[in-house]
């Protein structure tokens, strides 16, 4: 499955911005099962400086600075990504790992294996997920039991969040603490992912934040509108002996080919798609649009031209 993704973020400022320094976390990851065929970052006005780094978590981060006056910033990431979920290691084919109980999992986490040491940092408090409340822990414990399979429990947690929480784009901002989301049981994908991560960490298992895209399908018989997709986020649980398994609580799905991964982190703070410091005064208006569709082959686009 090959996708073309266009992710555009624009800022319109009331007053001139003299200069700005920014970070973009927009390049999809390369791994067995996901291949980046093409990636371009277009920025207007043209930055004076751009450079790519690999961050602590192995994500690609682009630094760019615009050093001339501007009143509008447009950042467009165009990616072409080949997704082949069937190449990925699938837990459903590893019954021992799938059946691994919480008790055994916690025991296995105490070994000095390199993968395990690496994973265990996702147990610790992070910038946005810290001082996990007893409410969250209690919510987690409904699903996670000593002698129950970790995979089953995580899948159930995903389903419960999907059922119990209401998707509400107007409730939260990037600054809303998870405790408020937990209380109101409302929010967006990022909130659900972070609540789930807090739940999993509260019972002693490593959990990480995944930022990416999801392809949305139009209602049957309708044309898909441009720009209706969005940035997406979900969570991933570390199952000792197997590795990381992703769960999407917003859609109650175990991600497959429709999910495209950009980056991993401890929470949203580590992987915001765009952040920056601008020098100017006054307010700004932001607009984001994401468009994901199966890439047309050369032949198809030609046939369209013939109409």
């Amino acid at each position, binding site marked *: 499955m090959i996708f073309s993704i266009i992710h555009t973020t624009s800022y319109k400022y009331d007053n001139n911005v003299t200069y700005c320094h920014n970070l973009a976390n927009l390049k999809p990851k390369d791994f067995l099962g996901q291949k980046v065929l093409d990636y371009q970052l277009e920025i207007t006005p043209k930055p004076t400086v751009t450079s790519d780094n690999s961050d*602590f978590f192995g994500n690609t981060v682009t630094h760019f600075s615009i050093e001339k006056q501007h009143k509008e910033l447009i950042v467009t990431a165009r990616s072409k990504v080949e997704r082949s979920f069937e190449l990925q290691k699938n837990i459903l084919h590893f019954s021992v790992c799938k059946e691994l109980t919480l008790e055994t999992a916690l025991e296995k986490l105490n070994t000095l294996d390199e993968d395990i040491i690496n994973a265990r940092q996702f147990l610790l408090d992070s910038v946005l997920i810290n001082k996990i409340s007893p409410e969250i822990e209690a919510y987690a414990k409904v699903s996670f039991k000593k002698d129950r399979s970790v995979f089953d429990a995580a899948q159930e947690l995903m389903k419960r969040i999907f059922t119990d929480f209401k998707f509400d784009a107007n409730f939260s901002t990037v600054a809303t603490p998870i405790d408020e989301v937990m209380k109101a049981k409302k929010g967006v994908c990022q909130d659900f992912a972070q609540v789930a991560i807090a739940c999993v960490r509260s019972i002693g298992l490593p959990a990480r934040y995944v930022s990416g895209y999801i392809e949305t399908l139009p209602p049957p018989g309708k044309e898909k509108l441009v720009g209706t997709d969005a940035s997406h986020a979900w969570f991933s649980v570390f199952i000792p002996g197997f590795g990381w398994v992703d769960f999407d609580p917003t859609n109650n799905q175990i991600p497959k080919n429709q999910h495209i991964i950009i980056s991993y982190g401890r929470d949203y703070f580590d992987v915001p798609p765009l952040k920056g410091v601008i020098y100017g005064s006054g307010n700004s208006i932001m607009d984001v649009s994401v468009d994901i569709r199966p890439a047309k082959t050369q032949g198809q686009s030609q046939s369209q031209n013939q109409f």
Partner: protein
Amino acid sequence: MDKSIDVFFKNYFKNFKNYDEVLRSDMSINPNWNILLSNFSKLGIKELNKKQQDLDWLLSENGVTYNVYNDPKGLNRPWNLNIIPFIIDQKEWKTIEKGLQQRAELLNLILKDIYGKRELIKNGIVPHEIIFAHRGFLRPCHQIQYKTSKDLLIHSADLARGPNGQMWVVNDRTSAPSGMGYSLENRFSTREVVSDIFNEINVKQPFGFFKDLNQLLINAAPKNKENPTIVILTPGPHNETYFEHAYLSSFLGYPLVKGSDLVVRDQKVWIKTLKGLIQVDVIYRRVDDAFTDPLELRGDSYLGVAGLLQVVRNQNVAIMNPIGSGVLENPGLIPFMNSICKYFLKEDLLLPQIASWWCGQEKERKHVLENLKNFVVKPIDITNRENIYFCEFLSKTELDSLRNEILAKPYHYVAQEKISFSTAPNLTKEHLEPRKVMCRTFAVAKENGYSIMPGGLVRVASEREELRVSNQKGGTSKDFWITNSTTKSSKKRQRYHWHHSTANNLSGIENLPSNTAENLYWSGRYLARTLVTARYIRMVLNQMGNSDYHKRDSDFESLHILYQSITHLTSVFPGFTGKNKVAAFKDPLKEIAIVLFDKNKVGSLAHALSSFNNSYYSLRNLWSKDMWRVYDALQKVWHNFDKKDHKNIQKITKLLDTIITKLIAFIGLIEESILVEQGLLLYFIGLQTEQAIMCIDKTRALLAVNYNEDVEYEVLEALLNSHESLNIYRYSFKSYLDIKNVVNLILLDNSYSRSLKYQLNRIRKDISKMPKRTENTALTSVEKNILEACNLIENASASELIKVDENEFVRKQLETLLSSLSDLIHNTSMSLTDMYFNHSDEQIQLINQKYNL
């Protein structure tokens, strides 16, 4: 024991027995202290006490301060230095020095490893939580490479003598260690006040160390520049150790800058100067790690420079210490230091450390929880000193809640043995008292190792029985001597000067940092405002006294005019105008007290003084010691004025007399202590601008209206008096007071330094010396405005200005001229600000987030 020394130690240990540096349990004296004590006994306790007072006076006069956050006594608490130094013999010091060199090297290797390969974690030498759960571990610093010979450039340790007689490491300071400047000032002050106590004692001097520090800064420059631009980055005057930042800036000769002075452009760091941007090669930072870059680190920081970390990554700037080194301020590492030492250096750790148990390990945690009362518990990242738990003093509930905190996040806590560290004698109220001491040492990186400062900063607990030693909690300090028991090799005087080899390439008016320039400009303006306001009100108070005596009608009328002119001059409204007029005339002293003492009213004398204070503190690296003294005296007179005297004409007049004299002394000192290219030019422009503005306001308030002859006489006299120009008038005109002559003298005189024309021409001349930002030879808007003002006044004639049309009260031409001049000066100041200071840009986060790193 020598009899005379014996006197000092009478009752020394009363109620308090402890391991002491000087007096042993058998009451014999540690021989290393013999000569010092004998020098003391020659002075005698009375003299010693007097010298202590001299020392206190000197430090306060020199403005040596330490700021305590949220201190009710306000900013700038005086630094305390006890006259009795702390001594370690050279032989013991050699061992300590080796241990410190090893520790610095070890921490350097740890720093390299945890931001690089992380072998310590991978190989199980250090549990990952000690690094990953430490808030000083900054993930954006992962894999940054440095060109300097070491990653860790400066290391500081707190040492204290444990019960086994050895010096133990209690803390490491690696982010932005403080204390070097204070230790230097301690040495200079002790040397100045009690040079006699150094007699026959060979004390090692720290100047070689400072040379190494300076060389380190020069060598750190990424492109091996011969003459790199080095700056000291401070969080600003509110920081607890701001004195030291300013002190080191003058001592080392590198400019003191704030984050807002610097900017990242084209992958480099630049300092904003009057001429433009100049590239910075090395930053000696005193801003904590997480605050240095609002792009990649704490987004809410206004103390750093956005994009700085990326410049570091590109190796276009060196920072001492590197950002991220705060992770080594980590008591969690202590239990693992021995294994780390074996792992990296294949040798044993030389310096003993305070016994510590990391609660992340089950066995250790159990031990700690079972014996909690005997421990001192700290989080591994003690960012807040209030977070140290001295368990022996905790109640049962407090212990339980600590226990729960440890159980919730065991890896976040370290328990340390409760230790009775050694005491040393402190001079307290005419006798010696044993007090706990803690020694802060300093190491800087060299090509093949670390250079250790001989001595350092010794801090002393604030109370006799106090366990904690911290400057935030009060307490005092000591000069730290490393002595050589062999007597002085020669009679050669030890040098107390230090020359460094490179010229500061940020000299000259063109390279003056914009912020410094702006502060100098405003210092000038506020000083002038303070002086003119004080003189004016003093004049009005004098007139009030006179008219009480004469009781003439014209006096009352002229007094009312003067009252109203106060309001126009200071803009403290409503004052004597509008609806308030009647009440204010009835009780003029009440209104005058507001204009003098209400700090919250913009335009009041108190407000001008406190605004001047702000600019003043931000510039403290520029001021001379004499200036400190005058300034300090000025502050004391002002703040000690009793509130109940706020309506006492005589006392206020006396206060104003003193303030005026001190201000004039201060202004005189500024002119001889700072060079024009150091920024005096900006100060002058500010001073003249404010004087011109106030001259215009005064003249407008007093001369624009045509009064009858008697009143006019009074008003003219008042104006000349407030201008301190009466004598000059008499000398120049030898006549009865006449408005035309007064206008000629106060406004139009060519050569009288208090005339408006002179002042405007002076501003124009000074502005023409300001650096140009472009090659363009056209006049800048600053120049245009001031030139127009000068032309206007050049073409004015007194006889025209004083004309009053029939049936009119107002001197229209005078009013028009003064109002145009006022606008032009205002525009000059605005364009000067836009062109040279320009801080109108705010730093804004693209996306608002609330979090703490």
